[in-house]
């Protein structure tokens, strides 16, 4: 018997709007702050809120990976780099480039596209409440990734590890002054 | 106490002590009770005359100087000359001295006082003598560099190098006299340790060392006025000035 099935989460709308509000505000702060460290902290907050959303979507494993990798790993790397480059001068410079208007226009166009897609293809989009069938999420993902019978991402997984290896080497090559 | 200059019970390298120290050690205390007013000039003459033409060429220049070395023992510290109570310096005999005398003539004066040997060297020879002391005579360790101020003399400063030779287990001092404002060649290239020691001499006496890599005050703050170890430096002046500037009152000292 699965406790998650037995107990659908309470106050879903409240938490959804809370977390999505945090995410939107965090996102806005990321792209508007002068100081890159503030941006990074805003981004971290948004990422953690997103982990909360994953939990609400019954994807605890993705949530855990999100926290460990994104908040605990990638963002630390970001902060590390921000500290290494001197920030004072960057802050004095102009923050937005000349084509900011174009950029916003492009984004607005993209947003319009989204809206039109939604308006035109309303029937394509899922509605109604999803069921809560899922029990052993982490185990299921593990099986999907690695199991010899049901797994179908084994190869992709190995490729991903290769990608990470290449990224490590690439980062070292790039950042090191003389090899 | 006389033991001190005797051959040590176990010299570090088992190096035989130079003969020069031997007569000095008992003599330091009782055996030579004052008296021998052997002027350095005399003793210089007893030495073989300089053979080298180069040294001979120097001679006229050095000739003018004997005035200084003889004046030296007297001036070594003589605001108050009265009674010759203690022992007086005696000439120092050693192969090293003989060699230097041969080459530099009267520019060099070797003496022993209380069993401690020192060379009085003319300022123009100092860099060469120091370098040769290290290279040829194995004085590889510069113990200290310091100075003494004698405001009443014309050449106000005695600058003293205290040297030690590890292979010979022997100490000696090199002294030279310079006037106020004169500078000395730096010996940092000879002994690396001279760096801070020279800085301190500069700091305290205002003696400049040419060729020093970074000659600036070391113990006193950069903005310090005057050179404290000069005899004419008023102890209170700095304090008075500070009090006047910072507190706006007369110092009570």
């Amino acid at each position: 018997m699965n406790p998650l099935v037995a107990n659908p989460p309470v106050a879903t709308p409240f938490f959804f709007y809370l977390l999505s509000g945090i995410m939107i505000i965090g996102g806005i702060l990321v792209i508007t702050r002068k100081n890159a460290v503030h941006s990074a902290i805003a981004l971290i907050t948004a990422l953690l809120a997103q982990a909360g959303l994953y939990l609400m979507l019954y994807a605890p494993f993705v949530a855990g990976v999100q926290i460990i990798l994104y908040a605990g790993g990638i963002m630390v790397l970001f902060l590390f780099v921000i500290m290494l480059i001197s920030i004072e001068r960057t802050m004095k410079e102009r923050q937005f480039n000349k084509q900011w208007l174009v950029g916003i226009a492009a984004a607005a166009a993209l947003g319009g596209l989204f809206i039109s897609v939604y308006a035109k293809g309303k029937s394509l989009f899922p509605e109604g409440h999803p069921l809560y069938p899922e029990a052993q999420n982490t185990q299921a993902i593990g099986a999907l990734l690695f199991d010899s019978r049901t797994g179908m991402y084994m190869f992709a997984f190995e490729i991903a590890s290769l990608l990470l290896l290449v990224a490590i080497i690439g980062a070292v090559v790039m950042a090191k002054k003389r090899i | 106490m006389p033991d001190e200059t005797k051959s040590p019970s176990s010299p570090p390298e088992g190096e035989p002590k130079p003969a020069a120290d031997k007569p000095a050690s008992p003599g330091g205390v009782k055996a030579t009770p004052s008296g021998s007013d052997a002027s350095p000039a005399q003793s210089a003459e007893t030495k073989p005359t300089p053979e080298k033409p180069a040294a001979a060429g120097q001679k006229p220049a050095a000739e003018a100087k004997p005035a200084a070395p003889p004046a030296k023992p007297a001036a070594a510290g003589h605001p108050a000359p009265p009674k010759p109570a203690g022992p007086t310096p005696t000439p120092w005999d050693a192969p090293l001295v003989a060699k230097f005398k041969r080459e530099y003539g009267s520019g060099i004066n070797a003496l022993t006082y209380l069993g401690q040997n020192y060379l009085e060297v003319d300022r123009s020879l100092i860099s060469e003598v120091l370098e040769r002391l290290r290279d040829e005579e194995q004085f590889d360790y510069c113990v200290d560099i310091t100075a003494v101020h004698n405001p009443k003399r014309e050449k106000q400063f005695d600058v003293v190098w205290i040297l030690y030779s590890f292979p010979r287990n022997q100490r000696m001092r090199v002294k030279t006299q310079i006037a106020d404002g004169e500078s000395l060649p730096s010996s940092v290239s000879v002994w690396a340790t001279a760096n801070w020691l020279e800085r301190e001499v500069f700091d305290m006496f205002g003696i400049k060392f040419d060729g020093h890599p970074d000659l600036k005050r070391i113990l006193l703050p950069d903005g310090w006025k005057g050179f404290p170890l000069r005899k004419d430096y008023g102890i209170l002046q700095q304090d008075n000035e500070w009090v006047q500037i910072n507190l706006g009152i007369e110092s009570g000292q």
Partner: protein
Amino acid sequence: MNSSLLQSIVDYVQSYLSSNQTPGVAGNWFWATVYVLLVFAGVSVGVICMNWLERKILAHMQVRLGPMRVGPHGLLQPIADALKLLLKEDIIPAEADALVFWIAPFIVDLAAFTVFIVVPFGPAHAVTDMNIGILFMLGVSSLSVLGIVTAGWASNSHYPLIGALRSSAQMVSYEVAMGLAVVSAIMMTSLSAEGGTLSMIGIVQRQQEQQVWFVFKFFPLGLVAFAIFAIAMIAETNRAPFDLPEAESELTAGFHTEYSGFRWSLFFLAEYAAMMAVSSIAVTLWLGGWLRPFPNALHGATWDLIFSFFPGLTFLFLGGLCFFNASRMPKHPFFKIQTMGLAAFGAVLGLIGLVLFVPGIRERVQDIFWFTAKVAAFMYLYIWYRGTFPRYRFDQLMKVGWKVLLPTGLALLILTAVVAMRTEVWAEVVVPMWLGFADLLRRIF
């Protein structure tokens, strides 16, 4: 009406007490909140106790007495310290980034305290039981590095910055070895009939099922994994001999050099809370969590009964210790209040001990007791290390992390995987794979 209300409350409590689920899993928000508060209070009290214990134990290791003035044997010293810290002026350096400077200690504290919601003090004594419990703990505790980095950066000073860089590098690199050790333990859980689990409670239950603490499983593999974790967790919490980020002699106080008063005390709180948190992970994964010691050698109802007396006996012993020391206090009237206070404290401890002998309470509490006792042993180790070891240098620390612990962890992981492999896997995967490989070779040559 009043009695019925009381009755319903009693029923409610009773229903909870007989429940075998954690409040989070049972969806019981009231009890979950109570538990959160309890855990928070418990951890805070633990930090206070640790503060006193560390000073006393370290002092006695170092032939001195430690705090003796505030309260008998300095028992009230932590409270005095806390008051002092709270009342101190809150200084934010003029050149600091005030906002980030302000936030940083809270990030660290948040990370340190949040992990406790999955720490299993007993089969039903946890705020909640998460499907990804251990992953959650590792992830959230790794967030504290963010707080440290931002604290170091926001101070706008060289020492904190270097301290923060050191700290982040150290924590990130030791997380790797730590993760490997954890994975090997998780692999061991998969040997149970129910399959593997990441849930903290599940891990302890698997140990119970397999009738072995994982530290002894596949000897010496479990032990090595435990050792790797035990080393990595000290580095992870920046404690001696890995306390470089706050190496006093080099960086004054590392990333929290510029912090003072309340904000500094938050870092202090977080450090000790994090120490307890990682110790809890170690206890859960390898030392059988809430399970009592010697479950195999000394099993049976009698032994269960005897072991269930331990919590009460411990408190009685502590109370007796207080009385003993009270009797040794100087008889001078100046010490009268202190003596009385110590005796009263002893009496309170003794009373608690007596209460813990009550059968219903006894059974419910012994899980918590054993868990706490194991964590306390780790806490003592932390203090002991601090009294004994010199500090590693930064490059040596990195060397230990990357060149010793990481390869050992990898080898350990592979070995555990091989040893733990079930027979049908051998039959279905490994043997065919090698056969196929041999076949391939045969065809080529």
